[in-house]
Structure formats: structure tokens, C-alpha cells
């Protein structure tokens, strides 16, 4: 069952089109990532789905509601973790969770929630004493305290150090195992790769690719690249014609890497030459992403 359905969603600010007609659906229990550079339209899209912004055109269905109506019953079923916000500095972790929890008809037990987000030792500490990563985890706790069916996480780990990010990923994976549907935005490829069941790459307000992290942008069918260096005199003797030669560097792009590699290594062993610096590579998600977004950020 689709939890989120977006059809031809468009948002214009004056002359500029922040979201230029996008379509996607998110199934129940899925972790869906909107991946794109800053300013691609991720936050605008998510904030339309959360009910913060009106749309210029298109159809949006979230849990059976039009989010633009801002119905109370709708807000009771979603959890929102904003990109930039802060929690009241002078409350304790427990007080903040209790205060926000009381507005929902069903809610997670405060103690359990504190454990889920890994703030057990900080439960009675004032928010102002928390580290950046801890504050962000508290914000996630406030987002899910109402036991929502659908959770929006807008750039949940931006600005984290690597260990804080690992902890956040673990927490998000745990939410997913609880059966929650999650819409995540990120500009980190590894984050999408680690967490998402499905990824849509968004750039300049358009979805330019969609798929699982393994198939995105035709990754699974893309050519494998075999590369090595060889004395230039021997290049002409290679049993297969290279795709590309640059000085001593030889490159093959092939759909049959096993056979090509077998031929090449057999030839090399027979001739007693080394294929220096041999690498066999498929395009990484990063390659695909950079190609799709055209390095737009820079």
C-alpha cells in the first residue's frame, strides 16, 4: 500500500521553479531517500508533504490526506524532524519528550524512547549541555514520540562527525525494523546507500533517477572498467583491442568482465609481463550521482 503518492508536484517561488514536476510513491514500511545537492528541491518537497508549504500544482496524498489541509488527525500520524531547528535549551531531555509527547493520542513510553535514541545517560540533563549529535537524536525522539506511521527526516546527519553519523544510522535502521515508513533527505551518497530501500536523485527540482541503491542510474548493468599499465611497446600485442589507451594506461569497458579478464591475464602470464596496478571496477553510487547531478553544487 502506498503511504505517499506524489504526482507532477510543482512549486514555484516567483520566477524560479524549486520543484519542477516530480512523481514518486513510497510504500508502507519502506525507507525512501531523496538524494540531491543543496538547493535541489529536497526540503521544499518534504515541507510540502509535511503541510508546511502550499504547492503550486500537482497531486499529493500522504496517508490518505492532502497535507495542505493541516488536519490534526494527519499531524497525529506523522513525525517531523526538521533540517534546522533546536530544542528548548532549558528543559531536560525527559521533560522535552514528555511535553511534546502529551499532544499525541498514542505515544511511546518516554524511557523506551530515550533508550531508542541512545540518550539514557543524558535523560535528566538540560538540552543546552548536549553535543550536536545528541541534540539531533533528541530532535528525532521528539519527531517519533507520537508513534507515527510515517517519519520525515530532513538531512538527519548533516554536520555530524563520522561516529555520531554511525550512531544515527543505527538508530534510523532500528526505526525501520519497527515497521515505520521513512522519508529521508540527504546529500550524502553513503547515507542513502546505507539506509534507503529506494533512492530518488533530485536535481534542479527534477527527479533524474530512481531505483534501489544498487540499480540506481543503471549501475547494475553498467560497463565494468578494467584498467592497468603496460610497457607501451607491448600494447600493440594485447589479445583484445583496448577501449582507451593513454600513454601506458590501458582501459577496457565491458559487459563480460570475467571473460575479458581471463583472456588478458592468460596472455600476461604467458608473456611473463605484469599488468601493473590492475583494477576492476563498477561505477560507484558516487560516480552515478555526480554524473546525474553534473556537479551542480560547484
Amino acid at each position, binding site marked *: 500500500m502506498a503511504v505517499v503518492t506524489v504526482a507532477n508536484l510543482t512549486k514555484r517561488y516567483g520566477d524560479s521553479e524549486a520543484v519542477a514536476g516530480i512523481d514518486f510513491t513510497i510504500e508502507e514500511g519502506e525507507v525512501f531517500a531523496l538524494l540531491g545537492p543543496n*538547493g535541489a528541491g529536497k*526540503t521544499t518537497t518534504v515541507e510540502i508533504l509535511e503541510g*508546511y508549504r502550499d504547492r503550486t500544482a500537482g497531486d499529493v496524498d500522504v496517508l490518505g490526506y492532502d497535507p495542505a489541509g493541516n488536519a490534526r488527525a494527519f499531524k497525529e500520524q506523522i513525525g517531523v524532524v526538521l533540517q534546522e531547528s533546536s530544542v528548548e535549551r532549558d528543559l531536560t531531555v525527559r521533560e522535552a519528550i514528555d511535553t511534546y509527547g502529551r499532544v499525541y493520542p498514542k505515544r511511546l513510553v518516554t524511557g523506551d524512547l530515550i533508550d531508542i535514541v541512545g540518550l539514557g545517560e543524558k535523560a535528566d540533563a538540560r538540552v543546552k549541555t548536549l553535543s550536536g549529535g545528541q541534540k539531533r537524536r533528541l530532535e528525532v525522539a521528539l519527531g517519533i514520540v507520537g508513534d507515527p506511521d510515517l517519519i520525515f527526516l530532513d538531512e538527519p546527519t548533516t554536520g555530524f562527525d563520522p561516529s555520531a553519523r554511525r550512531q544515527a544510522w543505527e538508530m534510523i535502521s532500528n526505526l525501520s525494523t519497527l515497521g515505520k515508513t521513512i522519508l529521508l533527505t540527504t546529500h550524502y551518497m553513503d547515507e542513502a546507500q546505507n539506509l534507503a530501500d529506494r533512492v530518488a536523485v533530485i536535481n534542479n527540482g527534477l527527479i533524474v533517477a530512481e531505483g534501489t541503491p544498487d540499480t540506481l542510474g543503471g549501475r547494475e548493468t553498467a560497463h565494468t572498467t578494467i584498467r592497468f599499465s603496460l610497457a607501451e611497446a607491448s600494447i600493440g600485442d594485447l589479445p583484445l583491442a583496448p577501449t582507451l589507451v593513454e600513454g601506458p594506461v590501458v582501459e577496457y569497458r565491458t559487459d563480460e568482465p570475467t571473460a575479458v579478464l581471463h583472456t588478458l591475464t592468460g596472455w600476461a602470464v604467458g608473456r611473463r609481463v605484469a599488468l601493473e596496478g590492475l583494477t576492476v571496477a563498477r561505477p560507484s553510487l558516487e560516480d552515478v550521482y555526480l554524473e546525474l547531478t553534473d556537479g551542480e553544487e560547484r
Partner: protein
Amino acid sequence: MKRPSAFALVANQTRYEWRIFWRTPISAFFTIFFPLLIFVVFSLVFGNERIDYLGITTAQFYAPSLAVFSAVSATYTNISISTAYQRDEGILKRVRGTPLPAWIYFVGKILSSIAIAVIGTLIMIGVGIVFFGLQVYPETIPTLLVVFFVGVAAFAALGLLVAALAPSGPGATAIANATLLPLAFVSGVFIIPSEDMPTWLNAVANFFPLKHFVEPFVAAFSPAATRSSFSWLDLGYLVLWGVVSLILAIRSFRWEPPTGGGGGRSRRASAKSA
């Protein structure tokens, strides 16, 4: 699965605002302690003598007038500044993403600030009675209560309006202080304006609500006061200010930080131009 009752939600919000206030020492200082300090200093500096042209002692004037100043700080200043800062920090935006109805959010703020105003006023009156021989006339207590609660409700609404219109937390701080302090001088809070005050300045004082709060409240502490000294005109004027402020505040209220929330828009603009 049952929705929390409106009563429970109002109680939750009021307790939340109350807690935040007392944990912000600077606001507690300026709301409760600072007016008390002025009261004690004035009473000592001027001597607690009978002021001839008023026919009452210094304390008999300053205890109620500074109690009103404290109550207005607790409502007007406190609500405008704290709400604008909460908006800057994205707290209001988060609240907007929860099922909490907006009106309950506002009511919680107003009730908490009124409770703080009650505390500040009781302390002021209490110190006046214990240390400076302040007289309270039982027959005027109903008048005092009506004037007080109408006054603080009106100033709470006005605080919400400043929060709605102010560009930022520092902006709200500037607006609240730059309006309250000069107005307190011309409205008879710190000093009784002289008879020679320019007409236009008198008109300014009469236009704004502070004078219509402090005058009847101080008058109820005068030995000459009776229940009949109750001023419907001042009271009606306060109600008018409160209602108009509340309507304008609700219509112009903003929940998102000045950048439009999350900085998405500004970042997009810079990405496009790059």
C-alpha cells in the same frame, strides 16, 4: 487511542511556558526583581513620606504602580521576546508540525504569563505591606482584581502582536523595551507627570493602554477610593486594545524562522547563481 483533552493540553502548555520562564534567569530578574528593586530604592530615596499633592505615602503610590510595571513585563515583554526567540530557533516551526492546535499554544503562553504577573504583583504588594506600611482597602479588592486581569490579558495579547510583527528575537527585545519604558514615564508608572506636560505627550499617554491600566490600579490604593471609583471607561479601553491586538496577532502570526525555514530557499538561490 484517545486524544488528550483541551484542558490537559492547556495545562501542559502552561506548565511548559512557566518552566521555561523560571529557568531563564534574565527574564525572571527583569520581571520580578527589577521592579521590586525600583520600589525599594524609590521608597528609600524619596523617604516614605506623604506626597502632598496625592495625599498618600510614597509606598502607597509606588507599590501598585510598580506592581503594574512588573505585570506588564511578565506579559507584554516576556511574551513578545520569548516567542520571537522561539521562532528564530525553529521551536515554533516544530510545534507547528505537531497536532497541537494553535489556539492552545497561545492560551498556554497567556496563562503562564498571567500566573507570573500574579506572582510579581503579590510579591510587590507583600513587600509594601510588610516593610513600607502599605494599606490595602478590602472594599476595593474586587476592582483591583478586575482591573488587574483585564490589564494583563490585554498586555499579553499585545505581546503576541509584537512577537508576530517583530522581525527577530533581538528585534522584539528592542521593540518591547523601546515602547514600554518611555510609555511608563508618561503614563504615571515611575513618576506622576507634571501638569505642564505638553498636550501632545498627554495625548500619546492617553492613546496607549498602559495609563488606563496603571491609573485605576493605583487609584484603588488611595484612601479616598470606594467601589464607585471603578472606571468603566479605562476598562473598556483595555478590552478594546486586547481584542484588537489578539485579532491582529493571530492574523499576522508567523511560525517559521525569518529565513523561511531550513534555509532551503536562500541556499537554492546561491546554488543557482553559482
